[in-house]
């Protein structure tokens, strides 16, 4: 991978493995069945629905593949995928919609 030595890549893999395991083991192994404070659980409930949308935003608005220029086809396909995912609650339908919409829009010359 450009810009990353093999040693750094493996360091990242191992560090993420250890870090992720620590998170998973935390309240199960180290702290027993002690109750967590409500405010902490309340915030943890929103990690996925906050961090993932943040990550995805620049990928959709300024894609690397188009040199950072906003691409109407990718933007439209992303909005359609998001809408389908929200209404159907179905992960596979979300992906299928996004990819099919992009290929269709590109075929139409958008």
């Amino acid at each position: 991978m450009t810009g990353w030595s093999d040693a750094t890549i493996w360091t990242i893999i191992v560090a993420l493995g250890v870090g992720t395991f620590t998170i998973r083991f935390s309240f199960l192994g180290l702290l027993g069945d002690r109750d967590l404070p409500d405010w902490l659980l309340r915030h943890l409930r929103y990690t996925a629905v906050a961090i993932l949308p943040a990550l995805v935003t620049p990928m959709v608005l300024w894609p690397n593949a188009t040199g950072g220029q906003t691409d109407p086809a990718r933007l439209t396909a992303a909005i359609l995928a998001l809408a389908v995912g929200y209404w159907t609650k179905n992960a596979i339908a979300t992906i299928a919609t996004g990819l099919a919409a992009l290929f269709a829009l590109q075929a139409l010359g958008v």
Partner: protein
Amino acid sequence: MASSTTAYWRGIRAALPFLLVVAPFGMLFGVVGTEAGLNLAQVMGFSVVIIAGAAQFTAVQLMQEQAPTLIVLASALAVNLRMAMYAASLAPHLGPAPGWQRILIAYFNVDGTYALSHMEYEAKPALTLSEKVGFYMGTATVICFPWYLATWIGAVLGASIPAGLSIDFAVPVAFMSFFAPALRTLPHVAAAVTAIILAILLQGVPYSLWILLAGAGGMIVGAELERRMAK
């Protein structure tokens, strides 16, 4: 032993539909990782050592953007913070299990194994500890082992995908499939919208720190709205 074996098979049956999600996601990670320039051992290392789809995609995406190593680690681990909540909610059921079992349970703690097992424990409070562990391992057998295999297939196929296809778009779409179905309540939607707005406004913050700031902002808004709505 017999009852825990029965529970194990029940876990396997309950998890079978998840193969429809695990197989394409695993393959997609294999393809994306290979296209990004990781070799087969490294792609498999991600799926076996970390075994967390969204975090794996996050790390590979940020590495491609040449983000600093610490940001790659912090952002991918932030994506996995929800698993602390899973661990906390499994603890009353699986906390009394022997240490080596808890280590395996923790390693296999992913969205699917957690969701299915927690649902089962809530629905059947009379289950014994060994039945609970058996069911959990059943779900892990179906959800986690195919993850490795699917990654391997994707990595091998990835090397032969022609460059003209818009495979780059598969990554944001995969991310959307992780969070869009999870937008079940108004606080969820508010958290996501806040994070998106902050992500746009904070793009200029160096070292890709905008990810963590936007994520934290979204979490605070979601949690605060939930608290106010509960009153």
